[in-house]
């Protein structure tokens, strides 16, 4: 049976997603002394606020046979971060977490060096897009590899087939990046106090949501070709692809958006659990019927991104080409989309 991994940002959210059918939950915890906006694309509210809160979440999860996985949340490693990160990891382990996700090769090497007695998982930040990359990580002692989003179902099938003794996890839902996550520097979360001569609100917008004026280089006329969010190509949903994804043999389906409201995290977990139950019991007709009702459901879950019907209309599907997805967030200045 494929596990559903749901994001949580509070104890209440953890209770909600566990009662909705998550087999595993994952979260970050604010790292004392590490300033988030410079290292992670997520603001503070996307993580649990204290280790004590993590402890409550872990105890509740364990009481319900659910595992809690903690992300290191820092897609970067440096000598000057080692002390804080080691303290952070030890603090999480003291709360009883079941695994740690490493998001940089250096962090994984540090975790190995710490000789922990919990499994280490490789984050999507390791950008695994082929079976040899998975083998590389397996040889480092990694227990589970979370694949890059920009990959096809056929490629996932082959990776699972070629990868023994290592679990494979894939993303299924939530606002996925337009670009390869680890190599994208256009997405720095946070807000800065603008300089006096800058006419904007200081929010560091992800470049994939910004409208650009596009000019062809070396064009003698130097005419503007378009004014569009040319880097916007994010994926959102994989409801329709669930039957095929289940057959790939992956260990887990990950729901994205630790920064999303708990209502979204709970609703998404519930729907995926229902769908997976139907698929696993061979009730494909009922699955298709329910799928249709979800596709028509314009329910507002407080997401700034989009709803499932919009995602369908725009073909913002995980695991399929997006060359012809309509550009979104189109606005003359690029400033009014949030």
């Amino acid at each position: 049976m494929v596990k559903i991994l749901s994001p949580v940002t509070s104890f209440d959210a953890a209770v909600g997603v566990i009662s909705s059918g998550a087999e595993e939950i994952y979260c970050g915890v604010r790292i004392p002394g590490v300033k988030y906006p410079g290292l992670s694309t997520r603001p503070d509210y996307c993580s649990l606020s204290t280790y004590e809160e993590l402890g409550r979440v872990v105890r509740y999860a364990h009481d319900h046979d659910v595992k809690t996985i903690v992300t290191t949340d820092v897609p970067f490693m440096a000598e000057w971060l080692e002390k804080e990160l080691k303290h952070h990891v030890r603090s999480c382990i003291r709360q009883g977490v079941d695994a740690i996700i490493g998001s940089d090769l250096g962090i994984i090497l540090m975790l190995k060096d710490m000789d922990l007695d919990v499994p280490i998982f490789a984050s999507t930040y390791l950008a695994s897009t082929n079976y040899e990359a998975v083998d590389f990580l397996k040889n480092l002692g990694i227990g589970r590899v979370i694949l890059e989003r920009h990959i096809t179902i056929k490629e996932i099938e082959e990776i699972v087939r070629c990868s023994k003794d290592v679990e494979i996890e894939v993303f299924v839902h939530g606002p996925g990046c337009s670009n390869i996550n680890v190599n994208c520097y256009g997405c720095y979360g946070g807000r800065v106090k603008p300089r006096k001569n800058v006419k904007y609100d200081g929010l560091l917008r992800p470049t994939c949501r910004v409208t650009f004026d596009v000019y062809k280089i070396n064009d003698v006329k130097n005419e503007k070709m378009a004014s569009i969010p040319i880097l916007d190509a994010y994926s959102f949903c994989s409801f329709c692809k669930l039957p095929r994804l289940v057959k790939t043999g992956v260990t887990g389906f990950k729901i994205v958006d630790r920064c999303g409201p708990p209502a979204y995290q709970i609703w998404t977990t519930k729907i995926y659990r229902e769908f997976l139950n139907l698929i696993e019991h061979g009730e494909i007709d009922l699955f298709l019927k329910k799928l249709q009702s979800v596709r028509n459901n314009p329910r507002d879950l407080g997401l700034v991104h989009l709803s499932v019907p919009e995602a369908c209309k725009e073909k913002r599907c995980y695991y399929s080409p997006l060359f012809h997805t309509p550009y979104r967030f189109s606005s003359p200045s690029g400033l009014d989309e949030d």
Partner: protein
Amino acid sequence: MRFSVQLDNIGLLGEAINSDCNSVRFGSEFCEYKLTDLDRLERICESVHGKGKKFSYVTPRVSNKGIRKLRKHLKLLNGKENVDIVVNDLGVLNIMKHYQNLRPCLGRLLLRVPARSPYVGTIMSARELLARRWFKRLFSSINITYRLTMEFFQRNGVKSIDIDWIPSIFSCLDSLTGYGFEVSIHLHLVPVTFARRCHTARFLGEKNPEKCSKPCFENAFLLKNDALGLKSFLHGNAVFSHKRPTRKDIRKLQKMRDKIECVLSTNPITTSITNSEQKINDFIHSMGD
């Protein structure tokens, strides 16, 4: 200082091999659909060696299919002398162990460099003093200068490391060379982001990546958002910011000249300084050699 010319379009090979550069790098850092065929790769390698220059094969991040194709390429190149492989994928690094004659060089996609952010200037000019100190440290760091990472790559036979022309990270060079790594510094184009689902292909209406007509061999685009102060270049599936080398920055590197190589990419963005052998030579000599 040594100079290398990097290209992914065979049409630009003549200018590169006839220039005064010390070595030629062929291949795409970013797009696996630009992987060439075996015969052509052999011809390119022989042409470069025939001019007495070192040859490096640049490989992108790849899918399973790309891994299979690259195995054949690496097997071929393993039979040649003096070939380096620029690796941008942990999977490619994993298969390098089967080809003992080839020397792996760590490509830019395997490095995390916070200073590549297009918002560095905004952050540094806007934050309060304490945070500025934090970000100054962040923006002068590269992830691989972490001791355990450098030791790991050293054990895995990595010979050199590609970095960007970002003067704030030049302070990392001592750590890298101290571990015995050579360093290749890419001039002009700093990668800000890249996609597997190509933004250029989508913009120009390409339908199938497998059958892409490679419009990026001829085209690149300037992307501007004046309100946010963003100015980038889109070339194929990658977005770059532009950094012009200054005399002051070049002087910083002079003391390490024996350990570093400068990489000049030839593509539609840099065409004004790379579209002829003479222009490449003029640029190389303008850098002080």
